[in-house]
């Protein structure tokens, strides 16, 4: 007998979703799968989707943690709409995720967790493995719990610890199925559990056992191993990166490029905390990280540091921005550079902390008392967070102003291969501390940029006072003069507007620079929108994708560019925020497409909307 199932079938792309209890280690398994997939040369995008509870009650649907990865032999823009492969570690994971599968998808089920108690906790009245509800799918039933216990038996772990290895057993099976090298994960286990050799060896044994299971067990027909050829990426050195890592490193790069040390004030908040964690490991880069007593202290410490001549940065999410609002107004009034990173999550109020949204745009733009303009930029992909963090700092230092960098939970936690930039090729950021006492006052301005001077404490002859009270344009002293306030308000606005002189012109991501329909997005929806536009164009639709990374000021040519399209569709993960600004700014008939589900756009949702728009036109 030959083994036809052992021949690998070639696929151009696959979407795999791992799902289990939040304590089942799905995120760890997902991260390892991501790493080995990247090393295998596929392009990829990931979507970790986990509950806010650290350990929700085991077996419940609200405790299900998922990790989705989309990998391909071509460029991957999103983590994929629907999984081709679902690994369900318990009934709740099956129940939560089954609805996302197309008929024919492969479902790998850990039958060992399909106990009466677990079925009940998941809300199943009948066992879905027996009642025919999985008939539309290809199902691979394995008692992963039992297989894992057998694999790790020699290590004499308690059954609880032994069962915790089952994520690596499942990972091993997937490694076999997709022709992955075990070595990077074995090396990772060596490092991770260096001080706990028994746990290390048990996990290694589980990983190898899962792999061996695939190699040796006769699988049901229709289930076979696959091969996804390497993607053709532009040449260069690559790594995987998440948005939050890229943000942290971009900030460090910005400090380096400006020759400034950085002071980060931050208060723990989901999904921003790990930017603080990453930066806390980089103290040798001249980064002082300060975990403050609250969000307000975090921004205030950054402002104090900026007053004293450092790059002041604060990282947070929407509720934190709300608390920092008054202090951001202070930084606007005293005209100090400040970078505020808002990693957006679903709101209002506490909202859904682990779920993504783009609903802080209006807060960033307008959420302050008084006329208080700031610059706003947004990152489009995980890797883009690196570049936009540098941009945020560059604009802040150029105009002596707070700048918002908006990212979101989706790109913050999602990983993608990233072509490592050559730092030497990034232009330095010019910073000048004022020195000359002659004719000095603290609100002397550069006639070109309108930025005020930056005189830092410790400089002889430049002692001065600044504050939130209105200042006289000509002396910097407190002023209640009516005409002066009018003038200062205009200057603060003009200063931000002039940043348009140094931001790139708006390009078109995909398609022509004119036509029937422009799909205009911003921030982390780049991948989904671009994939949808490409797919519609492949079907002959006249549609272009314009993606904004500079939201205030807008690129100078944006108005003219938009006017060359008959229709403008603005998909956003909010109730219509950018669309309001575009309509008011450019008087264009832009229409919104909103999704406010705490989840990223599916490509298919956008395709449908685009085609529908074009049909209306016809």
């Amino acid at each position, binding site marked *: 007998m030959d083994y036809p199932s052992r021949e690998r079938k070639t696929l151009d792309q696959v979407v795999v979703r791992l799902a289990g209890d939040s304590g089942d280690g799905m995120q760890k398994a997902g991260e390892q799968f991501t790493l080995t997939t990247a090393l295998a040369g596929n392009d990829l995008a990931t979507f970790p989707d986990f509950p806010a509870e650290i350990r929700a009650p085991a077996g419940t649907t609200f405790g299900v943690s998922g990790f989705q990865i989309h990998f391909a032999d071509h460029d991957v823009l999103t983590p994929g709409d629907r999984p081709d492969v679902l690994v369900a570690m318990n009934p709740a994971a099956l129940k939560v995720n089954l609805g996302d599968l197309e008929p024919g998808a492969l479902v790998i089920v850990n039958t060992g967790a399909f106990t009466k108690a677990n079925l009940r906790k998941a809300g199943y009245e009948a066992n879905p493995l027996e009642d025919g509800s999985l008939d539309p799918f290809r199902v691979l039933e394995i008692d992963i719990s039992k297989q894992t216990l057998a694999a790790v038996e020699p290590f004499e772990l308690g059954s609880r610890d032994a069962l915790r290895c089952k994520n690596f057993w499942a990972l091993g099976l997937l490694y076999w199925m997709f022709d992955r090298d075990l070595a990077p994960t074995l090396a990772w286990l060596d490092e991770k559990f260096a001080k706990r050799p028994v746990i290390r060896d048990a996990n290694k044994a589980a990983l190898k056992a899962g792999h061996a299971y695939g190699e040796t067990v006769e699988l049901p027909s229709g289930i076979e191993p696959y091969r996804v050829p390497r993607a053709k990426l532009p*040449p260069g050195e690559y790594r995987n990166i998440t948005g939050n890592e890229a943000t942290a490193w971009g900030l460090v790069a910005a400090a380096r490029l400006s020759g400034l040390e950085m*002071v980060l004030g931050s208060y723990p908040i989901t999904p921003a905390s790990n930017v603080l964690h990453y930066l806390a490991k*980089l103290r040798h880069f001249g980064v002082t990280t300060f975990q403050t007593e609250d969000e307000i202290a975090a921004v205030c410490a950054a402002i*104090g540091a900026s*007053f004293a001549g450092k790059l002041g940065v604060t990282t947070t999410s929407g509720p934190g921005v709300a608390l920092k609002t008054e202090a951001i107004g202070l930084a606007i009034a005293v005209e100090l550079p400040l970078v505020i990173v808002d990693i957006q999550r679903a709101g209002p109020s506490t909202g859904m902390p682990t779920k993504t949204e783009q609903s802080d745009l209006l807060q960033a733009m307008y959420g302050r008392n008084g006329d208080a303009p700031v610059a706003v930029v947004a990152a489009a992909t995980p890797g883009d967070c690196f570049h936009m963090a540098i941009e945020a700092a560059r604009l802040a230092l150029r105009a002596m102003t707070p700048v918002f960098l908006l990212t979101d939970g989706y790109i913050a936690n999602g990983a993608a291969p990233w072509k490592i930039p050559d730092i030497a090729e990034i232009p330095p950021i010019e910073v000048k501390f004022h020195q000359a006492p002659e004719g000095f006052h603290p609100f002397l301005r550069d006639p070109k940029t309108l930025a005020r001077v930056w005189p830092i*404490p410790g400089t002889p002859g430049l002692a001065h*006072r600044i*504050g939130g009270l209105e200042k006289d344009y000509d002396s910097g002293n*407190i002023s209640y003069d009516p005409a002066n306030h009018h003038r200062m308000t205009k200057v603060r606005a003009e200063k931000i507007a002039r940043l348009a002189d140094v931001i790139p012109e708006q390009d078109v991501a995909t398609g022509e620079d004119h036509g029937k329909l422009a799909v205009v997005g911003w921030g982390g929806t780049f991948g989904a929108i671009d994939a949808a536009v490409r797919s519609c164009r492949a079907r002959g639709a006249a549609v272009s994708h314009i993606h904004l990374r500079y939201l205030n000021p807008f690129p100078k040519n944006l108005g003219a560019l938009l006017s060359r399209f008959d229709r403008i569709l603005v998909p956003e993960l909010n109730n219509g925020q950018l669309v309001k600004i575009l309509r008011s700014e450019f008087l264009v008939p832009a229409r919104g497409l909103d999704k406010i589900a705490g989840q990223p756009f599916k490509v298919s949702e956008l395709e449908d909307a685009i085609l529908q728009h074009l049909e209306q036109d016809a």
Partner: protein
Amino acid sequence: MAPDTPTALTRKSFMSDQEVRWCPGCGDYAILAALQRTLPKLGVRPENTVFVSGIGCSSRFPYYMNTYGFHTIHGRAPAVATGVKLANPDLDVWVITGDGDGLSIGGNHLLHALRRNVDLQILLFNNRVYGLTKGQYSPTSLLGQHGPSTPLGSVDYPVHPLPFALGAGARFVARAIDTVQKPLMEIYERAYRNKGASLVEILQNCPVFNDGAFTDVAAKDVASDRQLWAVHGQPLVFGKNRDKGLRMRRDGCGIEVVTIGEGGVSMDEVLVHDETNLGLASLLAHLGPPDAPMVFGVLYCNPAPTYEHQALAQNELARQRYGEADLDALLRSGHTWTVSGNEDG
């Protein structure tokens, strides 16, 4: 603006060109004058000195000092000042706050600046009222304070600044009063010399909204009986004839007032001030009329390493441990792979 030249400095060197705009008779004038007189004696440079304030009458203070100054937002001065100190620990940073600014809206930041022991001189002007917003009761107002928001009298109990500071873990706690210049200047100097967070409560009269708030300790006819100026190593005595003292109660935990020579009380029984003793400082911080004198001077001084010193030492430690910062190496840390130009997909 006159350049600060490194010549001998005088009170004038620290006076800005801005007209002082507190109400006539405000205690803030005396507090400002005492500091402008003290700084030249300390040998500090105006360009190396930063005053950070919040919001309120007292927080106008930085505008009147010819130093670097930052008039921030309500309650947040300790947080801004901490950022200044982390950015440049060589600066002398003073925080100017009031009872509303520091203990109501900014209570949290004050607590944390104190417990972290950031090297700041924090001057808390306590007039037990909101002045700038016209007379509402403050968190240090006594029970029953009448004002526009409490026409029937306030019903919430006051917070006491010094016990609060000690509870927060402050390592330097002192009390002064606007009417007595020389000790105020001495306390400024002590606060300046202490490396760490120094909290100085300054009782300050608001002649417009809370006139006479401290007459029970400040009035000339009662001052000697109601003010006890604590000096490290000296017996805790007071009174016109310095014949009254504090001793530990015999019938429980606490301090009682005794008259030396009366009822067989001898000087030996009177407590000797030990400013490094937290328990004693806590007892002294709570004392006040009518049963006891209010204690002034340095109640507690027990230095410890500062926050910024330790935080910045960690930056140095990281340099030693991880070596020279290399951004290119950082971006390539962990797993990387190379895609070459002519690779067959």
